[in-house]
């Protein structure tokens, strides 16, 4: 496409020059993602962190009250909300996800696999508003009628997120299980273990780093999810009072109030985003660490 570049004076570029220019263009494109990450870091942190100082570091992080109308900004309720919801989602998503991945990698008949695998991919593609709608129409009444409370609760959000992180956990875990050398499995069989034991005592432990990476990626998804959680969690900005009561997470705090916030309130929301961003960066770093470890060990 750029082989026909002409200079203003009508001469075409000579071949070496073209090569060099295009190499610089490619390098520039590659650096774009570095620049973008730096820009995002700068925008979020530069706007958010001054607000943290203004509010007071300990007031901001350990304050149990979020009252924008009185200029009281404590985000501990939201941090705990995020932690509860994520922990709940992991309790549901991790065992089901890992066992499903084991099934896909080692137990599944080929015919069933050709149905199951696309279904999991399909689950990953469903937009979060559709999940939220499903949660609102099905899970909220279900929790209200069969467990208790109003239905708009942390438990409902955890249930919904548990389903939402399934595809992430299944896909990454399955890849990790498939990367374990077949000789491990065969060695276990040769020592007299049956199929189930070879898989669970040899193959699964050998894939542990990959599985951990899967769980961490699932945590990232759960912490970062916004719209679906907002539609089912109740969103009261107070300390979590129990699984059946409503609560608010870091992400929903931002999206609910950003529409009308101004001044310090707006900066406090950006500071919330900065906290969320730092959480996510830490999660990403540990994901990269375990992924590399899995590759090196494999």
């Amino acid at each position, binding site marked *: 496409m750029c082989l026909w570049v002409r200079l203003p004076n009508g001469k075409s570029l000579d071949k070496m020059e073209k090569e060099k220019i295009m190499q610089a263009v490619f390098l520039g494109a590659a650096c774009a993602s570095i620049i973008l990450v730096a820009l995002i870091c700068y925008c979020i942190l530069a706007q958010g962190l001054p607000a943290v100082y203004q509010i007071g570091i300990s007031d901001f992080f350990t304050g149990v009250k979020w009252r924008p109308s009185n200029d009281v900004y404590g985000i501990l309720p939201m941090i705990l909300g995020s932690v509860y919801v994520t922990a709940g989602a992991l309790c549901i998503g991790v065992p089901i996800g890992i066992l499903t991945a084991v099934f896909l990698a080692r137990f599944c008949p080929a015919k069933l696999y050709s149905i199951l695998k696309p279904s999991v991919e399909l689950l990953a*593609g469903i*937009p979060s508003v559709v999940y939220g709608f499903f949660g609102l129409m099905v899970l909220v009444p279900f929790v209200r009628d069969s467990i208790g409370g109003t239905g708009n609760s942390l438990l409902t959000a955890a249930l919904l997120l548990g389903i939402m992180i399934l595809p992430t956990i299944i896909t990454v875990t399955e890849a990790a299980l498939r990367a374990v050398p077949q000789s491990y499995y065969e060695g276990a069989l040769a020592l007299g273990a049956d*199929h189930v034991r070879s898989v669970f005592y040899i193959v699964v432990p050998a894939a542990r780093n990959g599985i951990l990476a899967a769980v961490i990626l699932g945590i*990232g998804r759960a912490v*970062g999810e916004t719209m679906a959680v907002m539609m089912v969690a109740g969103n009261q900005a107070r300390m979590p009072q129990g699984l059946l009561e409503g609560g608010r997470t870091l*992400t929903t705090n931002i999206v609910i109030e950003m529409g009308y916030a101004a001044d310090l309130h707006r900066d406090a929301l950006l500071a919330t985003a900065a906290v969320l961003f730092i959480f996510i960066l830490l999660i990403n770093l540990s994901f990269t660490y375990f992924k590399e470890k899995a590759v090196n060990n494999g």
Partner: protein
Amino acid sequence: MVSFYKKYGCKPCSILLMMAVWLASCLTILSLSFLLVYVLAQGLPYIDTNIFDIKYTTQNLSLIPALVNTILMVVLALGLATPLGIFAAIYLVEYAKDKNRVVNVVGVTADTLAGIPSIVYGLFGMLFFVSFLKMGFSLLAGSCTVGIMILPLIIRTTEEALRSVPISYREGSYGLGAGKLRTIFVVVLPAAVPGILAGIILSIGRIVGESAALLYTAGTVAALPENIFSSVRTLAVHMYVLASEGLHMEQAAATAVVLLVIVLFINQAAIRLAGKLMKGNPNG
């Protein structure tokens, strides 16, 4: 029965574990099929000609403007992100030497971009594109934001597609006297097209389903845009607004069906293409 024992053993622990594995898979597949059947059952009865009117009013709650906006958003975002992503991947695969520092850093930043939650992208877009570059709540600001969101996906899938092109293709091209640039554009890229396309189609799916990043960058105006600086709402945002108002659950359900059908169709296309790549290339 004998073969069953041989394969799975008859120790209680093994049988329990195997039952757990089957149960978990059944739960996964059940939750998916329940979700699909439920959304379809709720939405299909309300798909009528009203919601496909050209103009949105509070009476008909038409989704056509939102649909058109979504398509425009996808085209603009892809126009921004695809060249950038493909060029970045070309540098990583064709130019950078192994264990190059740039490759490492770009890899880490691409993973970081992929992990950032969409609401953080939304805030970034609001601060940078909407306020700092003064684009306002607009189609352009929204598409820039989602363009950045899909960048890592395009880089990673293109990188994989380029790496799966056999080295012999390049050697053959050099052997015939082509330069590096010509080799890349005439030999390597065409061979990697199915993989790149699969990545692009996956990105389309992500843009179509995105709502949190667009709420504060593209806004929620339910009309066809006059130009790229008009505020627009995409289909996912449209559905969110309908569902969160709580008054139009029927139309929200109908929109969910349209959204689901589009996303499922897109995903299937991506999977088909990726499969084609696997088959077409023995080394892949």
